């Protein structure tokens, strides 16, 4: 499968390169932009980025494997990141994650990101989201949801099932 980059996206990426004295610096912003467009970072996206920035593919691939936010396969349309770090844990993050998993028929004990078979939801435990004063918090796509109890969790799921217009990533961030 070859990568098809629409002209406006390529223009956006070209502009990103101009922000840095050295092209390699743009690689993280490239990966964010490509992931937002395609939903994940494919091997083709890695090769394309490397060629564009004059790097060996391994220089880009090692970023995808290191930084937790980059993913190599498509995830659910509604991506639920439940913070598991201390303040959220004290406020019941563990039960919250279990609630999401049980409602979606996912394994509440598995510790890796899990996606529903219909591809609508992914539930994941992540580290501190820096909103500890309103724990427990959940990042749903790009939207931070605070003080999430069972009923708020259910509305997040209902929103996701109805197409999740408000929760869908609102376009690319680099513009």
């Amino acid at each position: 499968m070859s990568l098809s980059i629409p002209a406006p996206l390529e223009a956006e990426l070209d502009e990103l390169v101009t922000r840095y004295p050295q092209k390699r610096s743009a690689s993280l912003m490239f990966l964010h932009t490509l992931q937002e467009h395609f939903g994940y970072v494919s091997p083709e996206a890695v090769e394309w980025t490397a060629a564009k920035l004059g790097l060996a593919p391994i220089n880009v691939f090692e970023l995808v494997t290191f930084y937790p936010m980059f993913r190599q396969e498509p995830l659910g349309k509604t991506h639920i990141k439940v913070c598991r770090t201390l303040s959220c844990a004290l406020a019941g993050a563990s039960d919250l994650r279990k609630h999401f998993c049980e409602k979606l028929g996912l394994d509440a004990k598995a510790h890796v990101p899990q996606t529903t078979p219909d591809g609508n939801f992914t539930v994941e435990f992540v580290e501190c989201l820096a909103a500890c004063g309103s724990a427990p918090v959940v990042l749903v796509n790009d939207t931070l949801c605070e003080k999430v109890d069972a009923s708020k969790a259910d509305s997040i799921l209902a929103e996701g099932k109805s197409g999740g217009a408000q929760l869908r990533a609102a376009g690319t961030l680099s513009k």
Partner: protein
Amino acid sequence: MPQEYRLILKHADQTGYTPDIECYLRHGGYEALRKALATTSRELPDGKKQSPQEVIRDEVLKSGLRGRGGAGFSCGLKWSFVDRRSGKPIYLICNADESEPGTFKDRQILHKDPHQLIEGMIISCWANDVKLAYIYVRGEFPQAARIINQALKEARAKGFLGKNILGTGVDLEIHLHRGAGAYICGEETGLIESLEGKRPYPRIKPPYFPAVLGLYMCPTIVNNVETLCAVRHIVSMGAGEYAKLGTVNNTGTRIISLSGDVKRPGYYEVEVGKATLGELIHHENFGQGLRPGRSIRAIIPGGSSSKVLKAGERFKLKRKGADGQMTTVEVDLLDLPYDFDSLQAAGTMSGSGAIIVLDDTRNPVDVLANVSEFYAHESCGQCTPCREGALWMSKALHRLTHGEGRKSDADYLLHIAQNIQGRTICAFGEAAAWPTLSFVKKFKAEFEARGAADEAHPGKPPASH
């Protein structure tokens, strides 16, 4: 009566205050920048001349401003280390990678008052002859990234950024750069590697002090969001007035992030050292105490890397009396003034200003297990003691919290932690070791009891869990 003193967050939560530039300008925005650019050179009593830029740098030094990211190092001194004779460009990076667990203060500035940060950055860049700067925003802040991008666009359109800013003949550009979920990017040399498009493996110091060999091996300043906002206020009100806020050697204001077992968690901006740890937790203007029937078991005083303080601990502090004589006073944990030096004297740190309160329903073994899992996940893997040790500690704590612990695990944890600290390239080693060292030492009976209970009933999870 201890109360908030809102300097940086003055407008942030006011009704109708929006993050756009027009609103900022209506509230006196970019006036400090105009004042900075109008600074004239001055002659010192010893006959030496200071350029306008040197005057601003001198003001920041005299203000006593200490970095708000975690280390609490003098901002003016940090700037003074910059190699200005190398002939290479000087870069400035705003560290907006806020990721120390418990900390959520920079988020407020980025979301609610982005132009204040940008103004602080422009002043800092101008004072340090910086022509290109970056705001490194953590990946988990997608909304903040959008807001900052919009704010940068607005600042460019108004002529505060770009070519010949405000007709001064000075060019300056600031760009947004996004991280992607790695805690280690908050370490300044790791951040620099990440900005160069690499894995964020921290660099060894010496020789890679950012002030000399930073971004692209050029002199580089890395400052926290709140620190750069403070620069704007120092210029606006003057170093002398700023230094009157707070206490001796702990000047200005600080935004405290309070979370955990308090009735009213939240962010509170206070004059540094004017409120005690106990007041921040119990006073009606701040945390409003614990839930009914609960008492404090422990306090993590400066982000999850800081050493835990146990309820009832007492500390000796040196205080200057009215007669100028230094005396030593013994204070309870809750009477510690919340400032850099008092927390250090108590064997811990105020770090990023994040207080996490643990009440008597919390078991220290469970708490440390959670903290330890964070560090095991976030170690970058470059240095063996940290990569392996953080994982070993997390594994031992996992078994202690899953009914498979041993009585000897307490000593085992201490042994590992002692062999991480001081043996790594960056301070992450200490950050991973300190929680274990302090929790296990101060709550050893709890750790041993948990292990002993598991040995008596192998495989059976403890009743309290």
